């Protein structure tokens, strides 16, 4: 896309430096735990050592005798206000604090309120809870067996652990196509529980002002407006009505989906503040964060892919068990309990597909949210990309060739997939070709052949993913009934400077910079002259927040539309000032000129001043607009990644030698920021591919509950990413943009897994579940006769 603005204006396509950085590099950001109010109290939480147990007794005496401790709050206390249970975003219910039993290890059991952080922890350490252990259900397959203990005994008519069944696509046509196919491949794929592990954990300060009855909550949330509404719906009956609730989401130290749900700690802090009239701070520690907050994935998938002998892919069938823990606390659009998993036909022109998912209760924390991904898209991409590779190897075709043969062609867009999505635009072959050229694909294949003759293990893996982001059109997309539009409200001041506020909330994506660039592009006002604000529900327009790569596709579009409304009014004012008809004016970023007389013009700054000092009679003064943007479709970013791995046959270690990522997110707002998003996303793709997993033993004890054994990659394990892009604009987005924050997280794991299997295929290895740890590879090598 050609640049339409100067570097000084800094519209679309300029790598301008970020406006948020000056405070962050000085340590002057304001994160939730940095807020300290006079008289503030601290909350600490007592958590269950058992995965499933009756609560026989909670003895608070010792805690209450601890210096500084003011109160111990239990489920019984909250039950008096009917606040001991709360709804999840998926219209299930979860406990705030238990009255009868606990359902997972690390579940909240009681809360201690004290005058200091340390006193609260002292108190929590001596709350004595007597438990009566119950049988634990860890495996979702076993949870569905007849005779399995029914976990949700709170639900009167519940006779099993099955939450919901959901299916999509043409079952009969898919079954027929698979039965008649020349070749089929079938594979069980497990995508384990993982955790976003943003470096800032979750927390809040709730401050209820007893005089004016207003609750202010500084909170680590990606969706402040929706949270305000949820609070009002849950606590309206105790006097917390929506106009008396203010949610402030200050600087957020990484979100990635983990800061979308409402966690019990927030609700307890609010209740404690309402009861005491004092500000109450709750900040979870890392172990609480990993062990109790919403997890991602935990999908047990069985997939079958069918093809003709010549490699033409024809049909895909998927069955999945979704382990949701003891409550479905996912953050999905309400119509889609498995999120957008049915984008699983990926980048390929498949004629038939059918997908079914069953949600299951187990004794684990409730979830699942996304891990930097738009509603289960990673699960979909991993499945189709693993299956495509399996098919290629089965047919003895090069995986790149099989992909090229089956890609949806550029001329097929807009493309209606077998599962009903309308892909907006794409050039999949272009991206893969560019990645192959950049990495030197043919040479690598030759090197691999040569190395195999010497017993050296090297693999090449491809992932040609298609994402689906920017939820979403109100016809199909809502969360708890709230339609998934988003918003921008812009005001231009008399001197031509501006402020714009949004319904989203940046957690590192750089909205203060990129939104200003969009507005600069549309109005010609320099990005540095536009202040961007988000995250305060008292000032920002209502919106559904930042997750699922929706900020650019939805709120970014709202910015363009608000700016265009302002431009329409500016045209009227310019015509008045220049004493010409509106039709006689032409726009270039920053000014209106009279057609044929370019010297006769008014800048946007002149017009802004006139809007307050010399506006036409009969027109309202001022220059501002608001847009609530309801996208007509989702956007479909895509890319092709190629990864080269070397395997150490002695230790089983997988070393990523090179990783080339070609992304296409449509028109680019800020190339520097886009590249940064891809770097980060790739690292959050590497992490679950090789290192991260939260698993449970048969008693429901969490493994991977601290950074000691939940292995977030450091700079040493992280390869030097090589990135590039192609540009295929979205035809329906006002800026032609698509969103990019999550593409790399979605696309990378399959490339790495495919590379490892590619290295081991000749030994008879067909699949490895992620994370591909040295232990797993070492075991596989020994099973297949490689002794190092």
């Amino acid at each position, binding site marked *: 896309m050609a640049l339409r603005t100067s570097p000084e204006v800094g519209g679309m396509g300029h790598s301008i430096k970020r406006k*948020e950085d000056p405070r962050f590099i000085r*340590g002057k950001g304001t994160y939730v735990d940095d807020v300290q109010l006079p008289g503030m109290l601290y909350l600490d939480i007592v958590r269950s050592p058992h995965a499933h147990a009756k609560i026989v007794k909670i003895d608070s005496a010792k805690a209450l005798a601890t210096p500084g401790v003011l109160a111990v709050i239990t489920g019984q206390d909250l039950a008096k206000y009917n606040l001991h249970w709360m709804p999840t975003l998926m219209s299930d219910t979860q406990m705030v604090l238990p009255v009868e039993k606990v359902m997972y290890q690390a579940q909240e059991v009681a809360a201690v309120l004290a005058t200091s952080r340390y006193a609260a922890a002292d108190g929590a350490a001596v709350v004595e809870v007597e438990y009566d252990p119950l049988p634990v259900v860890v495996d979702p397959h076993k949870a569905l067996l007849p005779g399995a203990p029914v976990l949700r005994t709170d639900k009167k008519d519940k006779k099993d652990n099955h939450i919901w069944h959901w299916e999509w696509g043409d079952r009969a046509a898919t079954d027929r196509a698979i039965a008649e196919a020349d070749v089929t491949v079938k594979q069980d794929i497990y995508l384990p529980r993982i955790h976003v592990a943003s470096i800032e954990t979750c927390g809040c300060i709730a401050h209820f002002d007893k005089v004016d009855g207003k609750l202010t909550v500084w909170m680590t949330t990606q969706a402040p407006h929706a949270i305000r509404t949820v609070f009002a719906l849950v606590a309206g009956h105790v006097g917390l009505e929506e106009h008396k609730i203010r949610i402030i989401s200050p600087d*957020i*130290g990484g979100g990635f989906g983990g800061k979308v749900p409402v966690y019990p700690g927030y609700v307890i802090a609010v209740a404690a503040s309402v009861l005491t009239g004092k500000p109450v701070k709750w900040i979870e520690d890392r*172990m609480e964060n990993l062990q109790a907050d919403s997890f991602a994935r935990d999908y047990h998938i069985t997939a079958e892919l069918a093809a003709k002998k010549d490699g033409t892919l024809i049909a895909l069938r998927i069955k999945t068990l979704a382990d949701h823990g003891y409550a479905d606390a996912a953050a999905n659009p309400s119509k889609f309990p498995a999120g957008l998993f049915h984008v699983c036909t990926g980048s390929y022109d498949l004629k038939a597909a059918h997908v079914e998912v069953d949600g299951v209760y187990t004794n684990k924390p409730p979830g699942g949210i996304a891990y930097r991904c738009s509603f289960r898209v990673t699960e979909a991409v991993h499945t189709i990309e693993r299956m495509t590779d399996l098919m290629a190897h089965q047919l003895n075709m090069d995986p790149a060739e099989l992909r090229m043969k089956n890609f949806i062609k550029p001329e097929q867009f807009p493309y209606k997939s077998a599962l009903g999505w309308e892909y907006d635009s794409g050039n999949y072959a272009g991206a893969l070709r560019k990645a192959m050229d950049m990495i030197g694909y043919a040479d690598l294949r030759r090197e691999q052949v040569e190395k195999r003759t010497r017993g050296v293990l090297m693999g090449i893996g491809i992932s040609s993913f298609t994402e689906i982001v920017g939820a979403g059109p109100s016809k199909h997309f809502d969360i708890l009934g709230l339609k998934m539009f988003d918003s921008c409200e812009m005001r231009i001041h008399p001197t031509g400077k501006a402020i714009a506020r949004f319904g989203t909330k940046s957690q590192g994506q750089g909205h203060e910079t990129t939104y200003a660039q969009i507005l600069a592009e549309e109005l010609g006002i320099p990005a540095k002259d536009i202040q961007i604000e988000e995250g305060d529900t008292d000032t920002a327009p209502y919106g559904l927040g930042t997750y699922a790569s929706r900020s650019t596709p939805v709120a970014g579009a709202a910015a363009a539309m608000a700016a265009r409304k302002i431009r329409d009014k500016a045209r009227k004012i310019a015509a008045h000032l220049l004493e010409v008809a509106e039709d006689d004016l032409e726009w270039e970023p920053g000014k209106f000129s009279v057609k044929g007389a370019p010297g006769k013009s008014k800048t946007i700054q002149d017009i802004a001043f006139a809007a307050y000092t010399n506006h036409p009679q009969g027109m309202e003064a001022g220059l501002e607009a608001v847009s609530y943007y309801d996208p007509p479709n989702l956007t479909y970013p895509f890319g092709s990644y190629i990864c080269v791995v070397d395997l150490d046959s002695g230790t089983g270690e997988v070393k990523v030698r090179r990783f080339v990522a070609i992304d296409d997110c449509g028109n680019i707002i800020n190339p520097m920021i886009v590249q940064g998003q891809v770097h980060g*996303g790739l*690292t959050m793709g590497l992490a679950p591919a090789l290192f991260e997993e939260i698993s449970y033993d048969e008693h429901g004890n969490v493994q991977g509950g601290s950074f000691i054994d939940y292995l977030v990659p450091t*700079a*040493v394990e992280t390869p030097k990413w090589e990135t590039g892009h192609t540009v295929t604009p979205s035809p329906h987005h006002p800026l032609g943009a698509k969103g990019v924050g999550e593409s790399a997280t979605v696309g990378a794991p399959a490339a790495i897994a495919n590379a490892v299997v590619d290295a081991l295929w000749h030994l008879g290895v067909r699949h490895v579940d992620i994370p591909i740890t040295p232990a797993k590879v070492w075991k596989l090598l020994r099973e297949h006769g490689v002794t190092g």
Partner: protein
Amino acid sequence: MRVQLSINGEKHEADVEPRLLLVHLLRENLRLTGTHIGCDTTHCGACTVLMDGRPVKSCTVFAVQANGRQLMTVEGLEQDGKLHPLQESFMSEHGLQCGYCTPGMLMTGYAFLQKNTKPSEDDIRRAISGNLCRCTGYVNIVKAVQHAAVKLQGGA
């Protein structure tokens, strides 16, 4: 217990519980909130500060252990209104996103560049391996440290 210490060149005294962590002394008693907390196990490095010039993770140092020491936090990098070259490089090379790990990265990078003035990429990656970043994928952090090294040597 009474502790006396110097932070960013300024003398401070405080009465503290023996168990008070240094990070809480800095953040809550002295309101130097640039130093962050990201874990409880000395893994993430968001709380890194310099004690007598050496990077330490202030979530696992008691305030009393800092008695009589010279401390430096992220707030001490800027001198007389002039940013340290490392801070400038983090901005110019896009070495930060959410900003949460940034103060720890800056302090680790600052101490590292005192010792190693011409670091290789691998040197830098090893040096910052005690600091986790979830946003950047480290590429631009490495570049920022390299860039700062050149600047500190009087280069561009």
